[in-house]
């Protein structure tokens, strides 16, 4: 299972960065989304995958009994998901605006400024 996730992380990172390097705006957005998901799975993986209970102490006990899942990575991932949701929504609107202004999906056409000295 862990090996599978490691491969998945690798695939997500590489395809995400590959997509970001393409010339199309939509592919750029897809790349950003894939990269974000890759990071989330990486965090999930780094805590070590344990089979255990939810990290909540039952009412009649004072401490954890047996194996329990590490809650921190899940909290981190939730936060990261929320943030990447906001970023993706923003990037979507931005790219749409840029598309309506320039009328093209080609990122190379957005290089006018660096040409002028």
């Amino acid at each position, binding site marked *: 299972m862990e090996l599978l996730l490691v491969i998945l992380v690798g695939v997500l990172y590489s395809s995400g960065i590959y997509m970001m390097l393409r010339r199309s705006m939509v592919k750029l957005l897809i790349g950003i989304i894939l990269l974000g998901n890759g990071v989330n799975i990486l965090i999930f993986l780094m805590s070590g995958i344990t089979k255990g209970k939810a990290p909540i102490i039952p009412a009649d006990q004072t401490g954890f009994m047996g194996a329990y899942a590490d809650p921190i990575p899940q909290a981190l991932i939730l936060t990261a998901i929320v943030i990447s949701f906001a970023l993706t929504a923003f990037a979507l609107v931005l790219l749409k605006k840029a598309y309506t202004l320039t009328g093209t999906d080609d*990122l190379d056409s957005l290089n006018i400024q660096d040409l002028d000295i």
Partner: protein
Amino acid sequence: MTTNFILAPIIVHFITAIILLCFWKKVLAQKIISVIGNSIAFILCVKLFELTLTNDYLVLQTGNWKAPFGITFISDTLSAIMVLLTGIVSLAVGIYSTSALNVSRIRFGYFFTFHLLIMGLLGAFLTGDIFNLYVWFEVVIISSFILMTVGGKKMQMEGAIKYVTMNILASSIFLTAIGILYGITGSLNIADIALKIQEVENKGLVTVTSLLFFVGFGIKSAIFPLYFWLPSSYHTTPSAIAAIFGGLLTKMGVYAMIRVFTIIFVPDNFTTILFIVIAVLTMLTGALGTLNKKNIRRILSYLIVCHIGYLIAGVGLYTELAFTAIIFYLIHDVIVKSNMFMITGVIVKIRESVDMTRLGSLLKDYPKFSMLAALVFLSLVGIPPLSGFWPKILLLKESFVQGNYVLLLTLILASFVTLFVIIRMWIEIFWKESPKPLTEEMDHFAPMPKSGKFALIAPIVFLTVVSLFIGFGANSIFKISEKAAYELKHKEIYIDAVMKTNT
């Protein structure tokens, strides 16, 4: 000392933002509320700085959770300096924006976003938790995205796409680094990580993680080869926004870099050499970039890149004196760069252009403003009694003592290029005869009401006075920087401060 007061400036900006949200589209109310909020926050920032200096550090364990488990907020000398600078710049730019910005921009929530941005900056400077640092970074970049793109023209979109993409990439890399760091140490508290990372056996993995942090922060602070988004986006924004971006945003990356590479990681030989090489290349490319530009905002953008190189060089030297120099430089740079961008805003108001070839004879028409601008220009260059001189000379001395002659030469070269560019700007904008006949309609500054003029000029005067104080009161600034540098080099102080104050 444990105190809730550490959060006061953050909360004030947050409350101001909430109140502004209730006054959506009411322009005058927004301006008044924002200025009041900024003033209160400024006073609290000064108070926080004072308290930190007298108590060495302030710590807060939020939620009453003991140190490695909860989110810690800590204000040591470096944080306090950054908070004070943020307070000063946000007050100045906040007042400046009331008059400099378009009404439509204010209607679309400029001030709301502005306060969120400042809140994010303050949070990033005060937090003692690496993931919390990430969250504050995100608050800052989302706010900066909005500020950059609202009212988008084609040119702005172009810069914004680069800016957004690079910053999202930087955040992903930063988050990856945090994930790996959590995997190898099992902690997120910066002080706790610093303790646990010494026991990690796989030193190679630690170095890789540290370089991931370096790349992540490097994109945000615009180092060579990751800087190109900055010169193509900063000059497209209105001057008030560019003042905040140029003054504080890139410095946030440098602050995070200084923090991470002193407390968590101790750079090995390879990393310090990498830092120096990157610093040299950043200075060279930034300096060379300024030479063929005609747009003064673009020149300033390249100067930001160039001067980031100074700061990275100090981290690369990794001695106490070098840290003193770059903290001093940071103080000077934040104030002066913000001021420079605000001055370009006034120039646009007067002449409708930021193109050097189309400007001229400002000295004849506006002698007082020109003298003010001259003071700021010369502070940036570092003519002796003014603020830029002392940190530069310290950094030169330190690189000479360390025997790093390539760095020494580059520093001198970059300083000369800065001098050359600034003098050229001065001659082209203020001295030479205006190339085209001036008409009354071009000048949007003269017909402004008195209050509008005051709101434009007062912040510039305020920041100039601050930078004069940095220059003439260099002794006290040096002492504070020295204290901050001492704390950075002796990380036990920071770690003890966090781990031992468990309330």
